[in-house]
């Protein structure tokens, strides 16, 4: 209220700012440690479905502790208030820890397999592109190649754009896994 003479104990309501319901506008990689128990993935997937949160990619794998698994998922922070997503996830009893990984502080990779039409001259062109992206040819027939590419989502998508004109027969992607940089644990 700020009248002269009143003690500094008081504040002005005007100065209060609302927090939360934050839409960051960027992609978030959530690294979630969960108890390795049946149904945990269903609980997470079900939570996203019923709250209307969209999962962009999802990977699940073991950790160095066989009681604990890691779920890595990416969410669009433009569509959903990310604090609501993490707070709802925390309510699942089997969820142990959630980290919302900062892009700068994180190494993220995914693996993709591309089956590309490659006959005649096209074959060497595809293989050149593959070299540039440090991809690996893992299968070859007279009419096609399968290329394995690992990298960030951007790199995988760039590769896709490059080979699509040759005739992209099939593509499979794992979704990202991510680990924090530096000594401390993710």
């Amino acid at each position, binding site marked *: 209220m700020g009248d002269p003479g009143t003690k500094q104990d008081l504040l002005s309501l005007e100065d209060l700012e609302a927090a939360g319901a934050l839409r960051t506008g960027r992609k978030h990689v959530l690294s979630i440690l969960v108890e390795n128990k049946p149904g945990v993935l269903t*609980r997470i997937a079900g939570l996203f479905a019923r709250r209307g949160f969209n999962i962009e990619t999802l990977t699940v794998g073991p950790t160095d502790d066989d009681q604990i698994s890691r779920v890595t998922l990416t969410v669009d922070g433009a569509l959903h208030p990310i604090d609501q997503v993490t707070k709802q996830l925390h309510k699942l009893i089997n969820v142990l820890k959630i980290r919302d990984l900062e892009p700068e502080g994180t190494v993220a990779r995914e693996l993709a397999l591309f089956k590309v039409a490659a006959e005649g001259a096209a074959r060497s062109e595809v293989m050149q592109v593959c070299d540039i992206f440090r991809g690996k040819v893992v299968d070859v027939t007279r009419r096609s190649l399968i290329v394995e590419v690992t990298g960030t989502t951007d790199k995988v998508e760039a590769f896709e754009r490059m080979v699509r004109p040759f005739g992209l027969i099939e593509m499979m992607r794992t979704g990202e896994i991510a680990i924090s940089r530096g000594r401390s644990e993710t």
Partner: protein
Amino acid sequence: MRAVDAVIECLKAEGVEVVFGLPGGANLPQYDAFYDAGIRHVLVRHEAGGGHAAAGYAKATGKVGVCFATSGPGATNVVTPIADAMMDSVPTVFITGQVRTDLLGTDGFQEVDVVGVTMPIVKHSFMIQHPLEIPRAIHEAFHLARTGRPGPVIVDIPTDLARAEIPYEPVTDVHLPGYQPTHEGNTKQIRQAAKALAAARRPVLYVGGGTINANASEEVRELARLDNFPVTCTLMGLGAYPAPDPQWLGMLGMHGTRTANYAMDEADLIVAIGARFDDRITGKLSEFAPRAKFVHIDIDPAEISKNIPAHIPIVGDAKNIVAKLVKEYRALEGVDHTRLEAWWERIHGWQEKHPLRYDDTEGDEIKPQRLIEALYEATGGDAIVTTDIGQHQMWAAQYFHFDRPRRWLQSGGLGTMGFGLPAAMGAKVGMPGETVICIAGDGSVQMNMQELATCAQEGIDIKIFISNNGYLGMVRQWQELFWDKRYSHVDMGQFPDFVKLADAMGATGFRFESKATLVEDIKQAIATPGPVMVDVRVTREENVYPMIAPGAAARDMVG
């Protein structure tokens, strides 16, 4: 011992006095253990009745309510009570039988994946895979049900594992590394909230059901009295603050008082205590309390800023936080204790201009609002009241005044028709010394009235008053107001004959049709021993007012 005998030991260790349930194929082992367990069992007529009874027991006593059901249809019958308990944060444990492990996944007889079916509506669930897990799962279920934000927990036990012999040792700890509810509120935030309150010229305390779960009513009263703060309660919070009190604005929300809703609309600071800004409270979200800053106290961090962004969020136990808030407020210097005078003048203006009112009949016909007033007069307010869902529920909220917590038992979030009668049964079992009244609608009561037979058999002395207008009244009201009076499938006629029905069930039935003798008639019905069902014929087409139309703003209340 058998795993099922260990379950009984666990229940005893948890202090369970009563279980509501119904046996079937897959939980036969459990019932065999129950045969001489020395824990009271109430044999319900339908598992839904058992689930709601467990909730009524929990709401009235603050203890964990327990319900047993068999596999398949038994388990699916408790789905509604589970969803209900989830919405209203009711501490309940459901122990379901499951088919043998070798039949799991084969669509065996009475097999349903109950853990899967209920996943979105439980606080947590345990699918037992090894008999050794059973005792720990039972204790963890109770721990989860009663702590943090309370809620329903299921333990699903395949019948072969239930019969297995296990070396039983009492479990004295729980191992839930992913579950650490916050109890202590952040001291800095609490201090900030105290300062905000001291700065506010038009504050309102907005008190919800979480206050009752936290047993924080005393603390809220103390807070309100610090500086004459106006108080409103949600439907779930009624009783957390005494209704006959000068600082009381009445219930807020869709059928709340104009005073409470207008006060929220003009408030500069709203302190939400164990309330979650449900759409029945806020109306049109974008126009809700447009001038207010929000202090939000809740044990569930996910409720904070879910619907309304909080300016001062405080996560933790309401009892402990409000007590600290009182202390912090007292410690402030330079607080102007006369600053609310203009605010109260404004509030008193609304109270005078817009009291709750209805047009009583000239003759002897009973208006449904009059029925509630008469019930209040006849009991002196000294009763535990459950209701079903609909018009009668809103009138009860408006005209029966609660001065203590745990006396008003509601299905608030889910709005479950058929809740009232079994919830009253559970409440009476938990609080045998209290008068327990179920105010029901003629539509709602038919959804679980089979439990009247349970009450008769067990001597559970509840008094059911049916506000009988022969309609699904609230739906009819909406059809009248928003659907051009096209009364599509809401007329229930005068079926069944509730007096004969009560008689057939082994209870006592009455029919009241006279306004003049209503209070005396009610007193007699309450004095009649054993379960009583009263058919009170009320005005057929009466609307609940005032009302915030769905999706409208509070200041645009009608009626």
